[in-house]
């Protein structure tokens, strides 16, 4: 009986001479772990600004919505697609949309992948999401993707606005991984780290933002 490809490959690998596994030295120090919460926010903002991300700091929910109104006016937003995670849900964007003459769509408005995609690719001027984490070490957002945080919301529209409570700020990626993957079960279908707008330098090394993903990323940090 012919071996399956899997067994053939694994058996070949197992039949090879064994080498000693090198012993692990000290795991390198993660400097950011020693920063205070305020320093973490500063570090996050500095890192994200370096990648042309825009960071706003606001006190509370009300100021966050004001900032959002400001952004809607500056960017000329007519239609946006939003997530339905707890942060965004608590902002009542439906009401905000009515006040600011912006149509706020959510995945629940669509009954199929295809109609959702039509909206997110062709109609939405911006994607508004929360974020599960903000990582200071590189100005990075961490998004768990599930029914309340669709993937394409933060990817397809040309502008991505993320509203993040400062309590979700951490120093390093490991702290995120511990929370998301720690149980090793019930893992999200996808988890993304996002650092600023999409970019490339593939033509003659000339860098620019907005290759396939958003051209602009705005993060509104909420809280004291």
């Amino acid at each position, binding site marked *: 009986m012919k071996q399956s*490809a*899997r067994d053939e*490959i694994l058996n*070949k*690998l*197992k039949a*090879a*001479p*064994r080498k*000693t*596994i*090198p012993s*692990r*030295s*000290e*795991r*390198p120090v993660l*400097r950011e772990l020693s920063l205070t919460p305020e320093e973490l926010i500063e570090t996050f903002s500095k890192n994200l600004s370096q990648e042309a991300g825009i960071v706003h700091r606001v006190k509370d929910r009300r100021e966050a919505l004001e900032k959002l109104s400001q952004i809607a006016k500056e960017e000329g937003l007519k239609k946006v697609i939003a997530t339905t995670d707890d942060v965004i849900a608590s902002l009542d964007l439906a009401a905000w949309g009515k006040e600011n003459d912006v149509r706020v769509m959510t995945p629940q408005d*669509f009954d199929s*992948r295809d109609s*959702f*995609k*039509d909206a997110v*690719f*062709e109609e939405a001027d911006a994607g508004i999401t929360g974020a599960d984490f903000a990582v200071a*070490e590189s100005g990075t957002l961490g998004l768990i*993707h*599930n*029914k309340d945080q*669709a*993937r*394409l919301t933060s*990817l*397809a529209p040309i502008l991505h606005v993320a509203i993040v409570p400062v309590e979700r700020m951490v120093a390093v*990626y490991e702290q995120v*991984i511990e929370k998301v*993957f720690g149980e*090793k079960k019930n*893992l999200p*279908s*996808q*988890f*993304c*780290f*996002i*650092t600023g707008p*999409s*970019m*490339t330098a*593939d*033509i*003659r*090394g*000339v860098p*620019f933002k*907005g*290759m*396939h*993903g*958003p051209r602009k990323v705005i993060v509104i940090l909420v809280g004291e």
Partner: protein
Amino acid sequence: MEVKTEQFSEVAKEELRKAYTFLKAGATFVRIRRETALSTFPDAAAAQAYGAIIRAEAIARLPELLEEFEKNALSNGAKMFWARDANEASQYIVRLAKERGIKYVTKGKSMVTEEIGLNEALEKNGVKTWETDLGEFIIQLLGVPPFHIVGPAMNIPVAKVRDLFMEKIDLKEPTSDPVQLGHAARIFLRDKFHRVDMGIAGVNMAVAETGTIVNVENEGNIRFNKSSPRTQISVMSLEKVVPTLEDALHLVRLLCRNCTGQKLSVYVSMDNGPKKSDEIDGPEELIIVIVDNGRSRIYQDTIAREAMRCIRCGACLNGCPVYRQIGGYAYGWVYSGPMGQVLNPLLLGLEKTQDLYRATTLCGSCKSICPAGIDHPSLFLHYRAKDVSGDAALRAKKTPMMERIFFRLWMWAVTRYRLWNWGVRFVRPFVNKEAHGGMLREVGGLFKGWFRSRDLPAMAKKTFHDRWIEAQKTEFRSQKSEATTEKI
């Protein structure tokens, strides 16, 4: 991808004539950016060394880590297909596409899909493939091989890209602005992302402890390929596995700093199986294709197998004095630069790639740069030794009998110093006849091959040995006369 590794010398000569100033300047610029990025580590050397340990362990534990990865990926709901070779892998993907009535696929940058000739196989079977990484997109439209693993189209002049886009993607207004050209590509490919039903991506890391697939990118095309269609196919060569998520994160920090001088690439996406039933986007099926293509055979060689530590950062290319002169085309296959020099010979066989592991000054720049701790110079010497001995496992052809006999005699002669001295004096007039301007560049006859890639100064009138003996005599004489003068 067509194999042109046996044309290394000819292509390298041609490329040398082009005198790539942008390449030398660009490589310097990228090297500085890399160093700046690495300095964000409290101890950059320790961080690089730790990366090497992770990859060494991954290779040492390869079979058990692959089993662990498979177990966890399957329990996440992913499907897995193991492919012995290029044909098995590409035919399987073709079958998946035909079964699902796929008209076109969008692809993320993946070197292993180039290895297995996936695009050709799909196109031959009526499935259109669209490369979506901007650089890969350009070279696909042009029909040229990649110039550099990170920037495959970076040598293409802007004017050529403009003309290409006007011809192939309906660019209306001619422009020499790379940014505008990029926007044109964005619009064109956006439509493909919107309607795609099968997306194909590579794998940067496969995490054994959780069955997670990690992709690293700046453009967003990989995220589209994984999230827009109903079917996601992730193709990985089997050495991409790493033990834990913490290990993967450390390697991602190193990869981004070494590759593009970034702390982190714009998107790091981590998949654990297909979408949940209540999600509106994401793949309904996630199929992982694990490709062997000769790696389990290479694994038997305990020295050569360390080449599989490579995380494809491409930093070795920018540090290599040879690559900086000739660019990527000469290396003749999927992988170029020092990376190609350690990988192509293993995957294609030593016989087909003889120039690749000889085109080096053994300066060790690549070795000192590599975050996976690959010792390229030692590997080159290992391949040369295996090449000469005709090692079957690495597919080397034994050197011809005449050459072996010659070197036997050579060894016998040069280890006898009188024979050496006599031989040198005898040979000198014949050798120097071929010298021009004090240099031997091209020599005819038996030694033509040796001089193909080496120059020597013409042989001096007196050997060092002769000059030494003369100098001793003169000094002795002058010492004697000094002593005599002193006496007086």
